[in-house]
């Protein structure tokens, strides 16, 4: 939690785009913070692992050492998961805010995340969600459907978009809860997942969702340049030679894949996609590729920090990480509304 704001504060608050040196410094600072978050995520938990044991566990693995087993089988996969989910949600948020030119847009608030969650719950109850590929497919399909519906209802106004998202989220959550209550197996399997958590997911095979997220992140970097032009407005984009319709479609596909895959892995986690782009807005004035790059670093930092907090905040056990992100994200949303005022809504 503390890493991200200090980082934003350390950069000179210039109105112009930062120079190359400034950018490298920010990038380096971000990577150092990410490294610190990774180390914390590996070291902290119910079973505290001494810092000195982490490196040997990775390079010189001893199957008889409890610390080594914890690091290799639980902490490292979970950290990887946190990095992937954080990056996916943050980049999805950055893309959707740029595309809709809407400071409140976020896959979680707009119902995309809950669309994916609903499809997964339904699939699980019907017995379709056994495989990693099946879960990914369900997650993305749900995300697409929710996006289309919310966008169709709310495309003319920022506020209506938000309300449609909130309403759809509520409906889908309600129906998902109904489904889970009627099939106890699903309830048990997805108890933590349904609130949004990384816990217990590290044991499953995560290759497919991680690869999908990685590919979509690369795609986001590639499309960011054209998105820069589209963000300036349709006319300008045409003049600059960007194919507006194609860039929009590709970006929407990327958003749904990122949000859908992240939800398939970690359940509905809100607000990460809202917080990160806002933290970075000052640093990345008007440069979408830069925003996407930094989101890929700060998103994981936030996610890992929240996940680490979620492990230690209760002495009785873990808290689903989505609860922590809601506590971080709620004030953020209030701040955004107060800062951008009711006039922009």
């Amino acid at each position, binding site marked *: 939690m503390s890493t991200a704001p200090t980082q934003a504060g350390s950069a000179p608050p210039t109105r112009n785009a930062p120079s190359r040196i400034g950018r490298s410094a920010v990038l380096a600072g971000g990577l150092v913070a990410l490294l610190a978050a990774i180390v914390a995520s590996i070291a902290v938990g119910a079973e505290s692992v001494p810092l000195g044991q982490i490196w040997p566990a990775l390079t010189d693995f001893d199957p008889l050492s409890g610390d080594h087993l914890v690091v290799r089988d639980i902490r490292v996969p979970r950290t990887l998961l946190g990095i992937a989910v954080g990056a996916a949600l943050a980049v999805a948020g950055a893309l959707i805010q740029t595309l809709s030119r809407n400071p*409140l847009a976020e896959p979680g*608030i707009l119902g995309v995340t809950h669309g994916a969650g609903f499809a997964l719950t339904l699939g699980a109850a019907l017995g379709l969600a056994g495989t990693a590929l099946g879960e990914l497919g369900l997650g993305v399909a749900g995300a697409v459907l929710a996006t289309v*519906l919310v966008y*169709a*209802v*709310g495309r*003319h106004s920022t*506020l*209506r978009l*938000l*309300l*449609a998202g*909130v*309403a*759809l989220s*509520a*409906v889908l*959550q*309600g*129906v998902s*809860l*109904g489904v889970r*209550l*009627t099939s106890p197996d699903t309830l048990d399997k997805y108890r933590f997942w349904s*609130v949004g958590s990384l816990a217990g997911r590290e044991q499953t095979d995560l290759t497919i969702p991680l690869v999908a997220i990685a590919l979509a992140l690369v795609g986001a970097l590639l499309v960011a340049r054209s998105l820069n032009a589209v963000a300036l407005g349709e006319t300008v984009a045409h003049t600059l030679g960007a194919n507006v319709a194609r860039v929009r479609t590709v970006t929407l596909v990327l958003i749904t894949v990122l949000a859908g895959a992240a939800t398939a892995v970690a359940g509905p986690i*809100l*607000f990460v996609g809202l917080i990160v782009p806002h933290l970075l807005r000052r640093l990345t004035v008007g440069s979408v590729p830069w925003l996407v790059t930094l989101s890929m670093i700060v998103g994981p930092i936030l996610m890992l920090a929240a996940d680490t907090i979620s492990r230690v905040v*209760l002495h*009785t*056990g873990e*808290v*689903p990480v*989505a*609860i*922590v992100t*809601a*506590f971080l*994200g*709620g*004030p953020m*949303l*209030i701040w955004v*509304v*107060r800062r951008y*005022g*009711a006039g922009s*809504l």
Partner: protein
Amino acid sequence: MTTTESPKRTAQVRVPVRGRAWWIERRTLGVVVGCAVAMLVLGFVGLSFGSSWSTPGEVLGALTGTQPSVVIVEWRGPRVVAAILFGAALGVAGAIFQNLTRNPMGSPDIIGLDAGAYTGALLVMTVFTGATTTVAFGSVVGGLLTAALVYALSRSGGLSGMRLVVIGIAVNAMVTALNNWLVLRAELEVAMAAVGWNSGSLNGIDWDDLILPFSVIAVLLALASLRAQALHQSALGDAVAVATGVGLERQRLLMVFIGVGCTATVTSVAGPVAFIALAAPQIGRRLARAPGVPLLPAALCGAVLLQLADLIAQMLLAPVSLPVGVVTTAIGGCYLIWLLAQEVRRR
């Protein structure tokens, strides 16, 4: 709402009350009577429905006492009455807040008052292990504190600003997270009981649970009906309200108190039942084609909606009885989306 401007006098009915003549819109009267009939019919269905249906004769016999039935009077009775009264209370609370904020989205379930009241109840249950009275008290305090927080944060934007709604949504998200945390933190038995009404449920309510909430809600509803005229005047705008002799600040405080009181009392017994407060006043207003958000149709629509939702919750997956909040959320959310889509079409 563009209503056809009908000639005033022919569209109204004269109702003599204690020597004074009250003019009521014919349509409003129709809606009120229609809703009351629907309420009675649904109540009758609710009394007959169960794992085995009772015949109308059995229900009538149980009600008049000629043919005593524990199932109908002690099990189904409280549930039906609770649905009617809680639905009415939620409908009135929603109408009050929608009038105050002049915004259909300003209703207590959207801006987090339900969740806040639930937090208060949870805190009392888990930390102080309180009795029913204390839980209800904690619930009211939680709701009032949440209301104060939302209004304080959105003050500069004005009560009617859209800012209030968005800030309410944010507060709602945080408070809901807090509730989840409290449940996880609690001892297992308390947590099980709390999760039971996490999404609002009328399961297992009996007469003893209802005495306190009924008396509180009855007092609050009576207060609301006394102040309804002033409420509608203040909805016309601050200047008009002051000019027509409404003490604005006191009026607002009282109304917020009534609204939060209704919401919190329902929440302390049944948990956060979402979307009735949002949908009922809007449906009532559209049925009555009223210019503002009238209280009486809102109350009746709320009662009918909650009864209907509770019946669906019991029937949908019988013998398993869903939390009624799940059904109200699904219905209310769909209604809200439809409302937004309608607005799009009208442009």
